[in-house]
């Protein structure tokens, strides 16, 4: 019968598409973002962070970067604690993304020091030679518009104070995006919580190994550490590394767990074997005939 009645057909079609819509799209509103999934410590963006977020959107960073860590073993190892609904309650719009041409950024806050981000945003390839991330040095040339940002904070109904707005006068878009990067995933204190308490005695599996074998270890250093500590351990974003300053065990722990407050990332994901290689490499870099340069 509806084959002859277009209006009836359209009404029926509308009802048909509303069924799934109501159940899977409208119904979840009664749970999500209610008290049930609030997380203490998750606070709205500050003016500069929110502006950084808007720049992230404007530049389409979400086309290469996702922002949710899924509760899967390899993923948590790579990026950190998996994402919770309550961490996103101030996100308008959501920025979870659908493609990881670059790494996930949900937990990048606090992973690196600010200086790393500035250098990386200026020219990603200067730090990671084969990356395809575009240069964003030009963001430094654009000052922030404090008034417009204040208006946006009002629209979002986020709290702010006058010093925060005044501080924007001297900042540029690069400062904003770095501030946003440092906020990401940092409202819950997961980095400290996931630090591994290393118990028992640490045994250096490479103790007494000839320094010739250090050659392959140098590439591990170059891939993971050189961007911050320099090609020859001379220091740049991170301090100069002088082997004599540390005990082997101490070095192992620093590399394995990082120094979260100091901007030194944790490298536990490399596995203890590689961390031992690095330990030996740093400890004995300036000693003996086995040097590879």
């Amino acid at each position, binding site marked *: 019968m509806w084959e002859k009645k277009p209006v009836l057909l359209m009404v029926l079609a509308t009802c048909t598409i509303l069924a799934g819509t109501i159940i899977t799209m409208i119904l979840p509103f009664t749970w999500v973002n209610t008290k049930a999934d609030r997380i203490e410590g998750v606070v709205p963006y500050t003016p500069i962070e929110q502006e950084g977020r808007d720049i992230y959107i404007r530049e389409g960073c979400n086309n290469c970067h996702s922002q949710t860590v*899924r509760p899967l073993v390899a993923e948590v190892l790579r990026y950190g604690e998996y994402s919770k609904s309550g961490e996103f309650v101030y996100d308008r719009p959501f920025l979870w993304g659908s493609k990881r041409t670059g790494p996930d950024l949900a937990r990048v806050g606090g992973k690196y020091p600010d200086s790393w981000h500035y250098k990386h945003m200026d020219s990603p390839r200067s730090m990671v030679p084969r990356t395809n991330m575009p240069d964003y040095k030009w963001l430094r040339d654009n000052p922030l518009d404090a008034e417009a940002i204040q208006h946006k904070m009002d629209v979002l109904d986020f709290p702010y104070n006058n010093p925060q707005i005044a501080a924007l006068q001297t900042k540029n878009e690069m400062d904003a995006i770095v501030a946003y990067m440092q906020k990401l995933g940092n409202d819950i204190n997961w980095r400290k919580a996931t630090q591994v308490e290393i118990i028992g005695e640490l045994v250096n599996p490479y103790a007494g190994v000839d320094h010739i074998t250090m050659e392959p270890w140098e590439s591990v250093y170059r*891939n993971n550490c050189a961007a911050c500590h320099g090609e020859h351990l001379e220091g740049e974003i991170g301090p100069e590394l002088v082997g004599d300053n540390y005990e082997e065990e101490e070095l192992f722990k620093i590399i394995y767990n990082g120094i979260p407050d100091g901007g030194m990332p944790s490298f536990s994901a490399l596995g203890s074997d590689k961390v031992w290689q690095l330990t030996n490499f740093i400890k004995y870099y300036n000693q003996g005939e086995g040097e590879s340069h």
Partner: protein
Amino acid sequence: MEKPSYNTDIVRGFVNWSIIWGLVAVLVGVIVSLQMVNPDLNFPPYLTFGRLRPIHTNAGIYGWGVGFIFATFFYMAQRLCKTPIWSPKLAKFQLWFFNATIIASAVTLLMGFTTSKEYHEMEWPIDLMIIVLWVMFAINIIMTIIKRREEQMYISLWYMMAAIIGIAVLFVVNSAAVPAALFKSYSAYAGTNDANVHWWFGHNAVAMALTAPPLAMFYYFLPKSTGVPIYSHRLSIISFWSLIFMYLWTGAHHLLWTPVPDWVQTLAMAFSVMLIAPSWGSVINGYLSMNGQWHQMRDNYLVKFLILGLTFYGLQTLQGPMQSIRTFSAFIHYTDWVPGHIHMGTMGWVSMIGFACIYYLVPRIYGNEIFSIPLANLHFWLILIGQLIWSISMWVAGVLQAGMWNAMNPDGSLTYTFMETMVEMYPYWWARAIGGLIYLIGVLIFIYNLYMTVQKGKKSSSTLTEAEGRA
């Protein structure tokens, strides 16, 4: 019966402009694929990957896809209803407004005015333009249907009506936002809710723009091209209702393993698998309609495009449900596998049907026979090869990448750093760029062929223009 005088001007207009936007989409596609292998090709602030990629996707879906949807719907509606278009004036205005909207979208996206929501990146003033555009179109088509002189409504009209309503509902709900400036707004929904609303929109945009309309075209243009009716009307009706019912439950298959409630994910997974049935209902209906006509695959280039397009649709609707299964999604989500899926759908299914429709329409709306069938065949092979290189290289890349992301050492640490996995993608991204270039050449040949048809084609025999009848 006396033949009503159908309006072909409007069909011409939309055919021409959809081809122009299609060319833009493919060109920008090639550019972004090259930017992924060579970041020196980013020219800030306007021409960076982050800003160009949405222009590529929107030009593809809205400029090209919706452009030829307008063209074919105006053509089909008039003939299936045996009545001229309800308001030619409105339709003419719609053509200009369509182009204005696409241009405004492209310019604002280049300037960085974006909501970041995939396939809905345009900011609120453009959203308003799109809504006006769609309402104009809806009124014109629905009034034409209401004023029809053929009592029965053919299945194509059903799909057209469903698409018109579906897109309206999806688009309006997902547009909800609070403006903060002329080209800046904040979504009305936050975080997890925003994600769930958005992918309810996103997946059903696939249903209502990239599935229902090409099916409407397929059901109309296949019988027109072969001269044999569709195998089973009943099967097409069952597929129709179950398709539009099931699609709306599946949005969360884009959000598996995310903080979206588990039961929403599970429903999405179940309904996605069930969707195989209505999807394959249409595929089988199409194949069975070819019974005794398979020789036309050789003789009739239109059939070649239509049946291969349908085959890609069939593969797409098997691959999609597979991707909706949690364990599989854990593996391939976020990898290059997914663009492989997408482009089998867009470059294969949607575009192949589009090319077939346009090859069918141009001789009829311009009154000239097609300039060169060998060129049309060459076009066919180039886009087929280009698309296969594109998708297959991405599937291989995606599996490789997923394997490396998940590889672990015996001591429970990761085997590869992110960059070690990423540099492995370069050869495949190169292959994809080459596949894209081949496809682009195919599209250029298509355009040349049509241009020559209009300019130099032989006047067609009357049978061609008169060949209207029931489907």
